[in-house]
């Protein structure tokens, strides 16, 4: 009996990538070598090396992809430019009178930080560094305080700008502007889910609300000080909608704006720039290598018709759209526990999107779904960048923080169901703005 080369290729990809991850290889290397091996089966060694390398190059050679390094750079500039503390102060004015006000402040600050940066890790580090010591001082349970920060930080991956949406836009050929707008609703759902848990947990872990309240004048001043920082989101989104620049170009404008702001605040000097640029270049390289090898991977998968194999298998189980959607959500949640959103989106979008499109789910809505789903993974063990960083800035090991994440995960999961089954939430804003 002969085995179909496509099946061999599919098996090589599945087990090769899993083995690479289990052996502690850089994920990109595991993907790259497995892709090459599968391509050798399909094309022979000579064409396989050529096609894989060409595909890596062309995968990166994309103008919209430029938004990623530029938004990363803008985020780094913000971290070193004194913007985080101003946003936290503003968040405190907004929710300072609520029960568990400092925990709520942390959540809202992560939402605000998300609105000016494209990554979640940056929020967990920048906001957490300031809020964690204060929360412990006020008598919060330390692991719980870290869990609040960890759980709320990924909101920034949904609230625009978002590098994760840029990656999705590339593989799904959907408009970045529409995706950015589609992320706003689910991002708010994420923030509200965290706030809800903070309220419910108030009796158990909360600290008494601060007794001294700032005067209205002080509050206004605090908010005013944060306006220039928050104005970045106005420039980015407004500039896109008005037509000064494309979403990709807006990232470069964000860099210039945050640079000027950091220099004006005197928290940033020209001498710091090379270090900030180099740090951003590192992050860029990590994402870019993944994009490159995943681009080769998706080519080989298309060539072997693997997306069709998977969709036939899924449709063979059931043809009920709801059931298939839930199956996909479970697969992605499991994948997300050990895989970063970027490679997961690059691998699974070409497989899942054609299936859900047939059910009439809009690609923009599915983008919001998949990004929300995989964002959960960044706070779950065994592998979750935001979890690692959040625990670290709280000075804790991972385990105690994980122990306090349960209710947050439940709330975020309910949020996921809402995002999946209420398309209005994602689609209203981009539709109203005429982007789709």
């Amino acid at each position: 009996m002969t085995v179909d080369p496509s099946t061999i290729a599919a098996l090589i990809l599945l087990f090769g990538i899993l083995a690479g991850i289990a052996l502690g290889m850089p994920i990109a290397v595991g993907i790259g070598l497995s892709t090459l091996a599968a391509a050798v089966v399909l094309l022979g060694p000579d064409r396989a090396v050529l096609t894989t390398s060409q595909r890596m190059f062309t995968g990166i050679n994309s103008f919209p992809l430029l938004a990623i390094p530029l938004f990363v750079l803008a985020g780094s500039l913000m971290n070193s430019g004194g913007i985080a503390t101003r946003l936290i102060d503003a968040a405190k004015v907004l929710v300072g009178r609520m029960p568990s006000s400092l925990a709520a402040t942390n959540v809202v600050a992560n939402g605000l930080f998300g609105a000016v940066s494209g990554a979640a890790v940056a929020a967990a580090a920048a906001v957490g560094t300031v809020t964690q010591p204060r929360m412990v001082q006020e008598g919060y349970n330390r692991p719980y305080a870290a869990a609040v920060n960890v759980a709320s930080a990924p909101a920034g991956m949904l609230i625009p700008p978002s590098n994760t949406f840029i990656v999705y836009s590339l593989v799904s050929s959907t408009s970045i502007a529409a995706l950015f707008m589609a992320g706003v609703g689910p991002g708010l759902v994420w923030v509200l889910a965290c706030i809800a848990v903070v309220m419910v947990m108030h009796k158990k872990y909360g600290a008494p609300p601060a007794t001294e309240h700032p005067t209205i004048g002080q509050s206004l001043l605090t908010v005013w000080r944060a306006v220039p920082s928050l104005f970045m989101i106005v420039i980015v989104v407004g500039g896109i909608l008005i037509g000064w620049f494309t979403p990709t170009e807006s990232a470069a404008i964000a860099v210039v704006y945050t640079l000027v702001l950091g220099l004006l605040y005197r928290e940033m000097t020209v001498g710091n720039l090379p270090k900030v640029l180099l740090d951003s270049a590192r992050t860029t390289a990590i994402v870019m290598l993944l994009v490159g090898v995943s681009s080769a991977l998706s080519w080989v998968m298309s060539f072997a018709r693997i997306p069709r194999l998977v969709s036939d298998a899924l449709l063979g189980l059931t043809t009920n759209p709801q059931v298939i959607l839930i199956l996909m959500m479970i697969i992605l949640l499991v994948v997300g526990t050990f895989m970063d959103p970027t490679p997961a989106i690059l691998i699974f979008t070409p497989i899942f999107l054609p299936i859900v499109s047939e059910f009439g789910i809009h690609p923009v809505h599915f983008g919001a779904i998949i990004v929300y789903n995989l964002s959960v993974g960044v706070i779950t063990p065994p592998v979750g960048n935001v979890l690692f960083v959040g625990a670290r800035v709280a000075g804790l090991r991972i385990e105690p923080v994980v122990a306090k994440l349960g209710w947050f995960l439940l709330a975020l999961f309910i949020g996921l169901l809402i995002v999946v089954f209420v398309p209005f939430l994602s689609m209203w804003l981009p539709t109203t703005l005429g982007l789709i």
Partner: protein
Amino acid sequence: ACGNGSDSSGSTAGGGGGGADMRLALNQTEEHPSFIALDNFGQKLSEDTEDRYSIEVYPNEELGAQAEALQYVGDGSVDLAIVSGTQLENLNADFAAFNMPGAFDSVEHQMEVIHDEEIVGDLYTSLEESNNVTILGGFTQGTRSIYSDKEIRTPEDMAGMKVRVQESPLHIGMIEAMGGSATPMAFGEVYTALQSGVLDGAENNEVSYFTQKHFEVAPVYSRTNHLVGLDYLIINTDVLESMSEEDRQAFLDGWTAAHQEHTQLWAEATDQAIADAEAGGATFVDVDAEAFAEAIAPLQEEFLTTDSQKALFDAARAAAK
């Protein structure tokens, strides 16, 4: 997946006449006339060669955009592809003659020229030695015009307009000759850019104008008819040469039927797109054709610099009657 028996291990480039399941890379969707005509071509080829040869069409750039597909066909990873003249021009400057604004008066004229052995014989085999690619002929991609939110009658109306172009010196020169400001931009960004005003206009055929929904944000289509677009079908030279005489004849006959069917489908798709766009609020207006022809004439001097380019262009014009 590739479960129809014979040889599913990819192409058989260089592998001696035994037949092959060929893969064809296409940049269009499954509803596009190009896909329909090519898919029918593949089915007919299977019948005519008793399943020795088949063609599976991979739509939606699944196997890469046109520039990549051209490389993959040369390498033999992919057997066939639809690529634009701009891509071929990067390898052999002579293709510029058929990419020139003003080369063709109509789709019919274009199809006649690009399938005339006397005119294109040497051109279509010119990449065999260097790139292992043979050109078989082409599909029209329709007549391109300018669209924006205002009527354009003369080149003067385009003064200062930021018009999206493909990133090629010729297309940039073309829009500038027509009076506008050429703005290269990725295709996927055009809708939002037109809507927000990053762009004042773009240029394309009626079918793309409708299917990409650009008519929603640029409701006036001014028939400048400045360019008749053209895509070529290319094949890996080894694959073509490995076909037996009989199979190759079946293949070439099938291809002739396919591009004829495509021309027919394209005309229908164009009429449909115009009707649908009009129903969606778009208007189609005529322009001062002579003024635009005059405006773009200097491009021929500028971009057709070699004798062979000029000869091809003149041959195309001579066939215009």
